[in-house]
Protein backbone atom coordinates (compact mmCIF):
# COMPACT_ATOMS: atom_id res chain seq x y z
CA UNK A 1 0.00 0.00 0.00
CA UNK A 2 2.71 2.47 1.07
CA UNK A 3 4.84 1.34 -1.86
CA UNK A 4 2.02 1.96 -4.30
CA UNK A 5 1.49 5.43 -2.88
CA UNK A 6 5.19 6.20 -3.15
CA UNK A 7 5.21 4.94 -6.70
CA UNK A 8 2.26 7.13 -7.67
CA UNK A 9 3.81 10.10 -5.92
CA UNK A 10 7.07 9.77 -7.87
CA UNK A 11 5.29 9.22 -11.20
CA UNK A 12 3.12 12.26 -10.55
CA UNK A 13 6.07 14.60 -10.25
CA UNK A 14 7.80 13.12 -13.26
CA UNK A 15 4.77 13.63 -15.50
CA UNK A 16 4.12 17.14 -14.16
CA UNK A 17 7.74 18.16 -14.73
CA UNK A 18 7.44 17.26 -18.40
CA UNK A 19 4.28 19.30 -18.71
CA UNK A 20 5.76 22.38 -17.06
CA UNK A 21 8.81 22.20 -19.34
CA UNK A 22 6.56 22.16 -22.40
CA UNK A 23 4.60 25.19 -21.11
CA UNK A 24 7.72 27.26 -20.61
CA UNK A 25 7.87 28.15 -24.29
CA UNK A 26 4.82 30.41 -23.96
CA UNK A 27 6.22 32.69 -21.31
CA UNK A 28 4.35 35.84 -22.41
CA UNK A 29 1.06 34.03 -22.30
CA UNK A 30 1.85 32.72 -18.84
CA UNK A 31 2.48 36.24 -17.55
CA UNK A 32 -0.63 37.67 -19.18
CA UNK A 33 -2.84 34.80 -18.01
CA UNK A 34 -1.55 35.17 -14.47
CA UNK A 35 -2.42 38.86 -14.51
CA UNK A 36 -5.79 38.07 -16.07
CA UNK A 37 -6.65 35.52 -13.39
CA UNK A 38 -5.60 37.91 -10.67
CA UNK A 39 -7.74 40.62 -12.23
CA UNK A 40 -10.76 38.39 -12.37
CA UNK A 41 -10.50 37.64 -8.65
CA UNK A 42 -9.83 41.25 -7.84
CA UNK A 43 -12.91 42.37 -9.76
CA UNK A 44 -15.01 40.12 -7.54
CA UNK A 45 -13.57 41.95 -4.54
CA UNK A 46 -14.29 45.16 -6.47
CA UNK A 47 -17.93 44.10 -6.89
CA UNK A 48 -18.23 43.52 -3.13
CA UNK A 49 -16.60 46.85 -2.46
CA UNK A 50 -18.95 48.76 -4.76
CA UNK A 51 -21.99 46.95 -3.33
CA UNK A 52 -20.99 47.74 0.25
CA UNK A 53 -20.28 51.31 -0.73
CA UNK A 54 -23.99 51.72 -1.42
CA UNK A 55 -25.47 49.52 1.33
CA UNK A 56 -23.95 48.85 4.78
CA UNK A 57 -24.80 45.14 4.87
CA UNK A 58 -25.96 42.32 2.65
CA UNK A 59 -28.71 40.30 4.28
CA UNK A 60 -27.03 40.93 7.63
CA UNK A 61 -23.49 40.12 6.47
CA UNK A 62 -20.71 42.68 6.60
CA UNK A 63 -18.04 43.35 3.96
CA UNK A 64 -15.30 41.63 5.96
CA UNK A 65 -17.45 38.57 6.49
CA UNK A 66 -18.11 38.36 2.76
CA UNK A 67 -14.39 38.74 2.03
CA UNK A 68 -13.72 35.90 4.48
CA UNK A 69 -16.25 33.70 2.67
CA UNK A 70 -14.65 34.66 -0.62
CA UNK A 71 -11.13 33.86 0.56
CA UNK A 72 -12.35 30.47 1.76
CA UNK A 73 -13.80 30.00 -1.69
CA UNK A 74 -10.51 30.92 -3.40
CA UNK A 75 -8.63 28.42 -1.24
CA UNK A 76 -11.22 25.69 -1.75
CA UNK A 77 -11.42 26.04 -5.52
CA UNK A 78 -7.66 26.31 -5.96
CA UNK A 79 -6.95 22.54 -6.14
CA UNK A 80 -9.51 22.29 -8.96
CA UNK A 81 -7.84 25.22 -10.71
CA UNK A 82 -4.25 24.03 -10.42
CA UNK A 83 -4.28 20.24 -10.14
CA UNK A 84 -7.37 19.19 -12.08
CA UNK A 85 -7.13 21.61 -14.97
CA UNK A 86 -6.75 18.83 -17.52
CA UNK A 87 -10.47 18.04 -17.32
CA UNK A 88 -11.15 21.08 -19.48
CA UNK A 89 -9.32 19.31 -22.31
CA UNK A 90 -11.23 16.05 -21.92
CA UNK A 91 -13.73 16.84 -24.65
CA UNK A 92 -10.90 17.53 -27.13
CA UNK A 93 -9.18 14.23 -26.31
CA UNK A 94 -12.47 12.38 -26.62
CA UNK A 95 -13.41 14.07 -29.87
CA UNK A 96 -10.02 13.62 -31.53
CA UNK A 97 -9.56 10.08 -30.22
CA UNK A 98 -6.33 10.88 -28.38
CA UNK A 99 -8.04 9.78 -25.18
CA UNK A 100 -7.36 6.20 -26.22
CA UNK A 101 -3.76 6.44 -25.02
CA UNK A 102 -4.84 6.52 -21.38
CA UNK A 103 -6.12 2.97 -21.67
CA UNK A 104 -2.65 1.65 -22.37
CA UNK A 105 -0.80 2.62 -19.21
CA UNK A 106 -0.40 0.45 -16.13
CA UNK A 107 -1.74 3.28 -13.98
CA UNK A 108 -5.07 4.37 -12.64
CA UNK A 109 -6.63 6.22 -15.57
CA UNK A 110 -7.95 9.18 -13.65
CA UNK A 111 -4.63 9.54 -11.88
CA UNK A 112 -2.69 9.49 -15.13
CA UNK A 113 -5.08 11.87 -16.81
CA UNK A 114 -4.99 14.37 -13.95
CA UNK A 115 -1.22 14.34 -13.55
CA UNK A 116 -0.60 15.38 -17.13
CA UNK A 117 -1.37 19.00 -16.44
CA UNK A 118 -0.63 21.52 -13.74
CA UNK A 119 -1.96 25.05 -14.00
CA UNK A 120 0.89 27.22 -12.78
CA UNK A 121 -1.05 30.46 -12.98
CA UNK A 122 -3.51 29.18 -10.37
CA UNK A 123 -0.74 29.69 -7.81
CA UNK A 124 -1.39 33.43 -7.88
CA UNK A 125 -4.97 32.82 -6.78
CA UNK A 126 -3.69 30.72 -3.92
CA UNK A 127 -1.58 33.67 -2.76
CA UNK A 128 -4.50 36.06 -3.15
CA UNK A 129 -6.71 33.63 -1.23
CA UNK A 130 -4.22 33.44 1.63
CA UNK A 131 -3.79 37.22 1.69
CA UNK A 132 -7.55 37.87 1.81
CA UNK A 133 -7.98 35.13 4.42
CA UNK A 134 -5.39 36.66 6.74
CA UNK A 135 -6.72 40.17 6.15
CA UNK A 136 -10.37 39.34 6.78
CA UNK A 137 -9.76 37.05 9.73
CA UNK A 138 -7.67 39.83 11.32
CA UNK A 139 -10.29 42.48 10.78
CA UNK A 140 -13.00 40.17 12.10
CA UNK A 141 -10.80 39.50 15.14
CA UNK A 142 -10.94 35.73 14.73
CA UNK A 143 -8.86 33.63 17.11
CA UNK A 144 -7.31 30.45 15.77
CA UNK A 145 -6.57 27.50 18.02
CA UNK A 146 -5.59 23.96 17.16
CA UNK A 147 -9.15 22.67 17.13
CA UNK A 148 -10.22 25.34 14.67
CA UNK A 149 -7.24 24.73 12.42
CA UNK A 150 -8.18 21.07 12.21
CA UNK A 151 -11.75 22.06 11.38
CA UNK A 152 -10.41 24.44 8.74
CA UNK A 153 -8.37 21.73 7.04
CA UNK A 154 -11.23 19.22 7.07
CA UNK A 155 -13.71 21.78 5.76
CA UNK A 156 -11.35 23.04 3.06
CA UNK A 157 -10.66 19.51 1.91
CA UNK A 158 -14.32 18.58 1.68
CA UNK A 159 -15.14 21.86 -0.07
CA UNK A 160 -12.42 21.13 -2.63
CA UNK A 161 -13.79 17.63 -3.16
CA UNK A 162 -17.24 19.06 -3.83
CA UNK A 163 -16.12 21.44 -6.58
CA UNK A 164 -13.73 18.88 -8.09
CA UNK A 165 -16.51 16.29 -8.19
CA UNK A 166 -18.94 18.70 -9.82
CA UNK A 167 -16.40 19.50 -12.52
CA UNK A 168 -15.49 15.85 -13.11
CA UNK A 169 -19.14 14.97 -13.63
CA UNK A 170 -19.53 17.94 -16.00
CA UNK A 171 -16.38 17.01 -17.94
CA UNK A 172 -17.41 13.35 -18.14
CA UNK A 173 -20.49 14.45 -20.02
CA UNK A 174 -18.20 14.57 -23.06
CA UNK A 175 -18.17 10.75 -23.15
CA UNK A 176 -21.83 10.87 -24.09
CA UNK A 177 -22.52 14.23 -25.69
CA UNK A 178 -19.03 14.95 -27.12
CA UNK A 179 -18.93 18.69 -26.59
CA UNK A 180 -18.98 19.05 -22.82
CA UNK A 181 -17.71 22.63 -22.83
CA UNK A 182 -21.12 24.29 -22.28
CA UNK A 183 -21.83 21.87 -19.41
CA UNK A 184 -18.49 22.62 -17.75
CA UNK A 185 -18.90 26.30 -18.42
CA UNK A 186 -22.28 26.22 -16.70
CA UNK A 187 -20.89 24.34 -13.70
CA UNK A 188 -17.86 26.63 -13.49
CA UNK A 189 -20.04 29.74 -13.60
CA UNK A 190 -22.37 28.40 -10.90
CA UNK A 191 -19.30 28.24 -8.67
CA UNK A 192 -19.07 32.02 -8.96
CA UNK A 193 -22.27 32.33 -6.92
CA UNK A 194 -20.74 30.42 -4.02
CA UNK A 195 -19.20 33.38 -2.15
CA UNK A 196 -22.58 35.05 -1.59
CA UNK A 197 -24.64 34.22 1.50
CA UNK A 198 -26.93 31.33 0.64
CA UNK A 199 -29.66 33.02 2.66
CA UNK A 200 -30.22 35.55 -0.14
CA UNK A 201 -31.22 32.81 -2.57
CA UNK A 202 -34.83 31.90 -2.03
CA UNK A 203 -36.79 28.77 -2.88
CA UNK A 204 -35.58 27.02 -6.00
CA UNK A 205 -32.00 28.30 -5.93
CA UNK A 206 -31.49 27.56 -2.25
CA UNK A 207 -32.50 23.93 -2.71
CA UNK A 208 -30.46 23.69 -5.92
CA UNK A 209 -27.31 25.08 -4.31
CA UNK A 210 -27.60 23.06 -1.12
CA UNK A 211 -28.55 19.60 -2.34
CA UNK A 212 -28.37 19.27 -6.12
CA UNK A 213 -25.31 21.26 -7.17
CA UNK A 214 -24.03 21.88 -3.66
CA UNK A 215 -22.02 25.05 -4.22
CA UNK A 216 -23.17 26.24 -0.81
CA UNK A 217 -20.67 23.75 0.61
CA UNK A 218 -17.80 25.31 -1.32
CA UNK A 219 -17.57 28.26 1.00
CA UNK A 220 -20.68 29.68 2.61
CA UNK A 221 -21.70 26.84 4.95
CA UNK A 222 -18.14 25.94 6.02
CA UNK A 223 -17.17 29.60 6.59
CA UNK A 224 -19.99 29.97 9.09
CA UNK A 225 -18.16 27.65 11.47
CA UNK A 226 -15.53 30.37 11.91
CA UNK A 227 -17.34 33.67 11.48
CA UNK A 228 -20.73 32.91 13.04
CA UNK A 229 -20.17 29.87 15.27
CA UNK A 230 -23.20 30.82 17.38
CA UNK A 231 -25.59 30.58 14.43
CA UNK A 232 -24.58 27.15 13.15
CA UNK A 233 -27.26 25.18 11.40
CA UNK A 234 -27.21 21.38 11.44
CA UNK A 235 -26.53 21.50 7.69
CA UNK A 236 -22.86 22.20 8.30
CA UNK A 237 -22.28 18.70 9.67
CA UNK A 238 -23.16 17.42 6.24
CA UNK A 239 -20.08 19.11 4.81
CA UNK A 240 -17.49 16.29 5.04
CA UNK A 241 -20.16 13.77 4.03
CA UNK A 242 -21.01 15.88 0.99
CA UNK A 243 -17.37 15.86 -0.09
CA UNK A 244 -17.11 12.09 0.20
CA UNK A 245 -20.49 11.28 -1.35
CA UNK A 246 -19.94 13.58 -4.30
CA UNK A 247 -16.42 12.34 -5.04
CA UNK A 248 -17.77 8.80 -4.96
CA UNK A 249 -20.49 9.73 -7.46
CA UNK A 250 -17.97 11.61 -9.63
CA UNK A 251 -15.61 8.64 -9.74
CA UNK A 252 -18.49 6.36 -10.68
CA UNK A 253 -19.61 8.66 -13.49
CA UNK A 254 -16.05 8.94 -14.79
CA UNK A 255 -15.61 5.13 -14.74
CA UNK A 256 -18.90 4.63 -16.54
CA UNK A 257 -17.82 7.15 -19.15
CA UNK A 258 -14.42 5.57 -19.61
CA UNK A 259 -16.02 2.16 -20.03
CA UNK A 260 -18.52 3.37 -22.58
CA UNK A 261 -15.96 5.21 -24.71
CA UNK A 262 -15.40 3.46 -28.00
CA UNK A 263 -12.76 5.67 -29.61
CA UNK A 264 -13.20 7.43 -32.90
CA UNK A 265 -12.88 4.29 -34.97
CA UNK A 266 -9.78 5.33 -36.83
Amino acid sequence: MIDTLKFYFRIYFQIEAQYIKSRMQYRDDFIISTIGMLFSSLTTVGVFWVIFDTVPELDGWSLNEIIFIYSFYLLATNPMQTLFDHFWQLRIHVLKGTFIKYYFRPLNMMFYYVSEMFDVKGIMQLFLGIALFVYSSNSLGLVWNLKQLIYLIILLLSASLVIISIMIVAASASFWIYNSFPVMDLAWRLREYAPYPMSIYKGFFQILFTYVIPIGFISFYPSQVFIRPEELTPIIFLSPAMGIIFSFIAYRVWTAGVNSYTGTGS
Partner: protein
Amino acid sequence: MAGLAYRSGYFFTIANNLIYMGIAFYLWQSIYGSREIIRGMTFNQTFLYLSLASSIFVLFQTWSDWEIGFQINDGSIITWMIKPLNYQFSIMASALGFVLTNLLTITIPTIIFLVFVFKVTFATGPGLIFFPLALVFSFLLTSTIDYIVGITCFYTESVWGLSITKDVIITFLSGSLIPLPFFPENIRSILEFLPFQAIYHIPLNMVIEPNQPTSEYLTMIGIQLVWVIILFVLSRQYYNKAVKKLRIAGG
Protein backbone atom coordinates in the same frame (compact mmCIF):
# COMPACT_ATOMS: atom_id res chain seq x y z
CA MET B 1 -23.58 28.95 -39.48
CA ALA B 2 -20.67 26.92 -38.17
CA GLY B 3 -21.99 27.57 -34.70
CA LEU B 4 -25.23 25.77 -35.44
CA ALA B 5 -23.36 22.46 -35.60
CA TYR B 6 -23.33 22.32 -31.80
CA ARG B 7 -26.93 22.98 -31.02
CA SER B 8 -26.87 21.65 -27.48
CA GLY B 9 -24.46 24.52 -26.75
CA TYR B 10 -27.23 27.05 -27.22
CA PHE B 11 -29.41 25.33 -24.69
CA PHE B 12 -26.68 25.61 -22.05
CA THR B 13 -25.90 29.20 -22.95
CA ILE B 14 -29.54 30.13 -22.49
CA ALA B 15 -29.68 28.17 -19.23
CA ASN B 16 -26.52 29.92 -18.09
CA ASN B 17 -27.95 33.32 -18.83
CA LEU B 18 -31.27 32.55 -17.14
CA ILE B 19 -29.56 31.27 -14.00
CA TYR B 20 -27.47 34.43 -13.93
CA MET B 21 -30.66 36.49 -14.10
CA GLY B 22 -32.24 34.47 -11.32
CA ILE B 23 -29.20 34.97 -9.11
CA ALA B 24 -28.97 38.68 -9.96
CA PHE B 25 -32.66 39.00 -9.08
CA TYR B 26 -32.21 37.61 -5.57
CA LEU B 27 -28.86 39.26 -4.96
CA TRP B 28 -30.10 42.73 -5.84
CA GLN B 29 -33.38 42.15 -4.05
CA SER B 30 -31.44 41.64 -0.84
CA ILE B 31 -29.22 44.62 -1.63
CA TYR B 32 -32.30 46.79 -2.05
CA GLY B 33 -33.96 45.32 1.03
CA SER B 34 -36.65 47.80 1.94
CA ARG B 35 -35.17 50.68 -0.04
CA GLU B 36 -37.15 52.00 -2.98
CA ILE B 37 -34.38 53.78 -4.86
CA ILE B 38 -30.60 53.48 -4.65
CA ARG B 39 -28.45 55.93 -6.57
CA GLY B 40 -31.43 57.04 -8.59
CA MET B 41 -32.33 53.55 -9.77
CA THR B 42 -35.31 51.44 -8.77
CA PHE B 43 -34.93 47.68 -8.30
CA ASN B 44 -36.81 47.12 -11.52
CA GLN B 45 -34.44 49.34 -13.49
CA THR B 46 -31.36 47.71 -11.97
CA PHE B 47 -32.60 44.24 -12.75
CA LEU B 48 -33.51 45.20 -16.31
CA TYR B 49 -30.10 46.83 -16.73
CA LEU B 50 -28.16 43.78 -15.50
CA SER B 51 -30.16 41.15 -17.34
CA LEU B 52 -29.97 43.07 -20.61
CA ALA B 53 -26.22 43.56 -20.02
CA SER B 54 -25.66 39.82 -19.72
CA SER B 55 -27.79 39.22 -22.82
CA ILE B 56 -25.74 41.76 -24.77
CA PHE B 57 -22.55 40.10 -23.55
CA VAL B 58 -23.75 36.74 -24.91
CA LEU B 59 -24.96 38.39 -28.11
CA PHE B 60 -21.53 39.81 -28.86
CA GLN B 61 -19.66 36.65 -27.97
CA THR B 62 -18.22 35.97 -31.41
CA TRP B 63 -14.85 34.44 -30.45
CA SER B 64 -13.20 36.44 -33.23
CA ASP B 65 -10.14 37.19 -31.09
CA TRP B 66 -9.68 33.42 -30.67
CA GLU B 67 -10.18 32.92 -34.40
CA ILE B 68 -7.46 35.48 -35.25
CA GLY B 69 -5.18 33.87 -32.67
CA PHE B 70 -5.62 30.43 -34.25
CA GLN B 71 -5.04 31.81 -37.74
CA ILE B 72 -1.84 33.52 -36.64
CA ASN B 73 -0.58 30.43 -34.86
CA ASP B 74 -1.23 27.91 -37.60
CA GLY B 75 -0.22 30.34 -40.33
CA SER B 76 -3.51 30.31 -42.20
CA ILE B 77 -3.66 34.10 -41.82
CA ILE B 78 -1.38 34.17 -44.87
CA THR B 79 -4.23 33.06 -47.12
CA TRP B 80 -6.07 36.23 -46.05
CA MET B 81 -3.11 38.46 -46.68
CA ILE B 82 -2.81 37.46 -50.31
CA LYS B 83 -6.49 38.04 -50.97
CA PRO B 84 -7.62 41.44 -52.20
CA LEU B 85 -9.83 41.80 -49.13
CA ASN B 86 -9.39 43.74 -45.96
CA TYR B 87 -8.63 41.30 -43.15
CA GLN B 88 -10.36 43.38 -40.51
CA PHE B 89 -13.59 43.62 -42.50
CA SER B 90 -13.69 39.91 -43.21
CA ILE B 91 -13.21 39.16 -39.50
CA MET B 92 -15.97 41.62 -38.65
CA ALA B 93 -18.26 40.12 -41.27
CA SER B 94 -17.88 36.65 -39.81
CA ALA B 95 -18.41 38.12 -36.34
CA LEU B 96 -21.63 39.69 -37.62
CA GLY B 97 -22.76 36.24 -38.73
CA PHE B 98 -22.22 34.98 -35.19
CA VAL B 99 -24.14 37.91 -33.77
CA LEU B 100 -27.14 37.22 -35.99
CA THR B 101 -27.26 33.53 -35.02
CA ASN B 102 -26.83 34.49 -31.37
CA LEU B 103 -29.65 36.99 -31.72
CA LEU B 104 -32.09 34.40 -33.03
CA THR B 105 -31.08 31.48 -30.83
CA ILE B 106 -30.12 33.12 -27.53
CA THR B 107 -31.12 36.74 -27.17
CA ILE B 108 -34.70 36.54 -28.41
CA PRO B 109 -35.60 33.47 -26.29
CA THR B 110 -34.01 35.20 -23.29
CA ILE B 111 -35.99 38.41 -23.79
CA ILE B 112 -39.21 36.42 -24.12
CA PHE B 113 -38.35 34.69 -20.86
CA LEU B 114 -37.54 38.00 -19.23
CA VAL B 115 -40.88 39.50 -20.16
CA PHE B 116 -43.10 36.50 -19.42
CA VAL B 117 -41.42 34.82 -16.44
CA PHE B 118 -39.65 37.62 -14.58
CA LYS B 119 -42.40 39.99 -15.72
CA VAL B 120 -40.08 42.96 -16.03
CA THR B 121 -41.80 46.07 -17.14
CA PHE B 122 -40.08 48.88 -18.95
CA ALA B 123 -41.16 52.39 -19.72
CA THR B 124 -41.54 53.30 -23.37
CA GLY B 125 -40.17 56.44 -24.93
CA PRO B 126 -37.92 57.76 -27.67
CA GLY B 127 -34.90 56.11 -26.00
CA LEU B 128 -36.11 52.72 -27.24
CA ILE B 129 -35.82 53.96 -30.84
CA PHE B 130 -32.18 54.91 -30.34
CA PHE B 131 -31.39 51.62 -28.58
CA PRO B 132 -30.92 49.48 -31.73
CA LEU B 133 -28.67 52.13 -33.26
CA ALA B 134 -26.58 52.29 -30.09
CA LEU B 135 -26.32 48.49 -30.18
CA VAL B 136 -24.87 48.64 -33.69
CA PHE B 137 -22.16 50.97 -32.40
CA SER B 138 -21.60 48.67 -29.42
CA PHE B 139 -21.03 45.84 -31.85
CA LEU B 140 -18.49 47.93 -33.80
CA LEU B 141 -16.70 48.72 -30.53
CA THR B 142 -16.58 45.13 -29.24
CA SER B 143 -15.50 43.72 -32.57
CA THR B 144 -12.73 46.31 -32.91
CA ILE B 145 -11.52 45.51 -29.40
CA ASP B 146 -11.65 41.78 -30.20
CA TYR B 147 -9.64 42.48 -33.32
CA ILE B 148 -6.99 44.40 -31.38
CA VAL B 149 -6.76 41.59 -28.83
CA GLY B 150 -6.53 38.98 -31.60
CA ILE B 151 -3.75 40.83 -33.35
CA THR B 152 -1.70 41.04 -30.17
CA CYS B 153 -1.22 37.35 -30.80
CA PHE B 154 1.44 38.37 -33.34
CA TYR B 155 3.55 39.19 -30.30
CA THR B 156 2.37 36.71 -27.66
CA GLU B 157 1.57 33.67 -29.83
CA SER B 158 -1.27 32.74 -27.52
CA VAL B 159 -4.64 34.31 -26.93
CA TRP B 160 -6.05 32.63 -23.82
CA GLY B 161 -4.72 35.01 -21.21
CA LEU B 162 -5.43 38.13 -23.23
CA SER B 163 -8.97 37.14 -24.00
CA ILE B 164 -9.99 36.42 -20.43
CA THR B 165 -8.28 39.60 -19.23
CA LYS B 166 -10.23 41.55 -21.83
CA ASP B 167 -13.55 40.02 -20.75
CA VAL B 168 -12.86 40.72 -17.09
CA ILE B 169 -11.84 44.33 -17.66
CA ILE B 170 -14.71 45.11 -19.99
CA THR B 171 -17.45 43.52 -17.88
CA PHE B 172 -16.31 45.27 -14.73
CA LEU B 173 -15.52 48.72 -16.12
CA SER B 174 -18.46 48.95 -18.51
CA GLY B 175 -21.15 48.64 -15.88
CA SER B 176 -22.35 45.21 -16.95
CA LEU B 177 -21.52 43.60 -13.58
CA ILE B 178 -22.68 46.53 -11.49
CA PRO B 179 -24.63 49.39 -13.05
CA LEU B 180 -22.43 52.44 -13.55
CA PRO B 181 -24.46 54.72 -11.22
CA PHE B 182 -23.54 52.45 -8.27
CA PHE B 183 -19.84 53.23 -8.51
CA PRO B 184 -18.51 55.92 -6.14
CA GLU B 185 -18.61 59.35 -7.74
CA ASN B 186 -14.88 59.82 -8.37
CA ILE B 187 -14.41 56.35 -9.91
CA ARG B 188 -17.46 56.85 -12.01
CA SER B 189 -16.10 60.03 -13.56
CA ILE B 190 -12.97 58.11 -14.59
CA LEU B 191 -15.04 55.30 -16.10
CA GLU B 192 -16.97 57.77 -18.20
CA PHE B 193 -13.76 58.71 -19.97
CA LEU B 194 -13.09 55.10 -20.98
CA PRO B 195 -14.47 53.41 -24.09
CA PHE B 196 -16.01 50.50 -22.16
CA GLN B 197 -19.04 52.34 -20.83
CA ALA B 198 -19.96 53.16 -24.45
CA ILE B 199 -20.45 49.43 -25.06
CA TYR B 200 -22.91 48.66 -22.25
CA HIS B 201 -23.88 51.68 -20.23
CA ILE B 202 -24.97 53.89 -23.13
CA PRO B 203 -27.44 51.49 -24.80
CA LEU B 204 -28.71 50.26 -21.41
CA ASN B 205 -29.25 53.77 -20.17
CA MET B 206 -31.50 54.34 -23.19
CA VAL B 207 -33.73 51.43 -22.13
CA ILE B 208 -33.99 52.19 -18.43
CA GLU B 209 -34.49 55.92 -18.91
CA PRO B 210 -36.24 56.22 -22.26
CA ASN B 211 -37.71 59.69 -21.69
CA GLN B 212 -34.70 61.98 -21.85
CA PRO B 213 -34.54 64.80 -24.40
CA THR B 214 -33.48 63.71 -27.87
CA SER B 215 -30.32 65.81 -27.71
CA GLU B 216 -29.12 63.61 -24.80
CA TYR B 217 -29.42 60.50 -26.93
CA LEU B 218 -27.67 62.16 -29.85
CA THR B 219 -24.76 63.07 -27.55
CA MET B 220 -24.54 59.45 -26.38
CA ILE B 221 -24.47 58.17 -29.95
CA GLY B 222 -21.86 60.83 -30.70
CA ILE B 223 -19.63 59.55 -27.87
CA GLN B 224 -19.95 56.05 -29.24
CA LEU B 225 -19.08 57.26 -32.74
CA VAL B 226 -15.97 59.04 -31.49
CA TRP B 227 -14.79 55.88 -29.74
CA VAL B 228 -15.46 53.75 -32.81
CA ILE B 229 -13.32 56.09 -34.92
CA ILE B 230 -10.49 56.28 -32.35
CA LEU B 231 -10.33 52.53 -31.83
CA PHE B 232 -10.64 51.83 -35.54
CA VAL B 233 -7.74 54.11 -36.46
CA LEU B 234 -5.68 52.62 -33.62
CA SER B 235 -6.42 49.08 -34.74
CA ARG B 236 -5.29 49.79 -38.32
CA GLN B 237 -2.01 51.27 -37.23
CA TYR B 238 -1.49 48.51 -34.72
CA TYR B 239 -2.08 45.86 -37.37
CA ASN B 240 0.43 47.45 -39.74
CA LYS B 241 3.00 47.45 -36.97
CA ALA B 242 2.22 44.00 -35.57
CA VAL B 243 2.08 42.19 -38.89
CA LYS B 244 5.82 42.69 -39.34
CA LYS B 245 6.28 40.35 -36.39
CA LEU B 246 4.73 37.45 -38.25
CA ARG B 247 6.86 34.34 -38.41
CA ILE B 248 5.44 31.24 -39.96
CA ALA B 249 7.11 27.88 -39.88
CA GLY B 250 8.97 27.38 -43.13
CA GLY B 251 8.35 30.91 -44.31
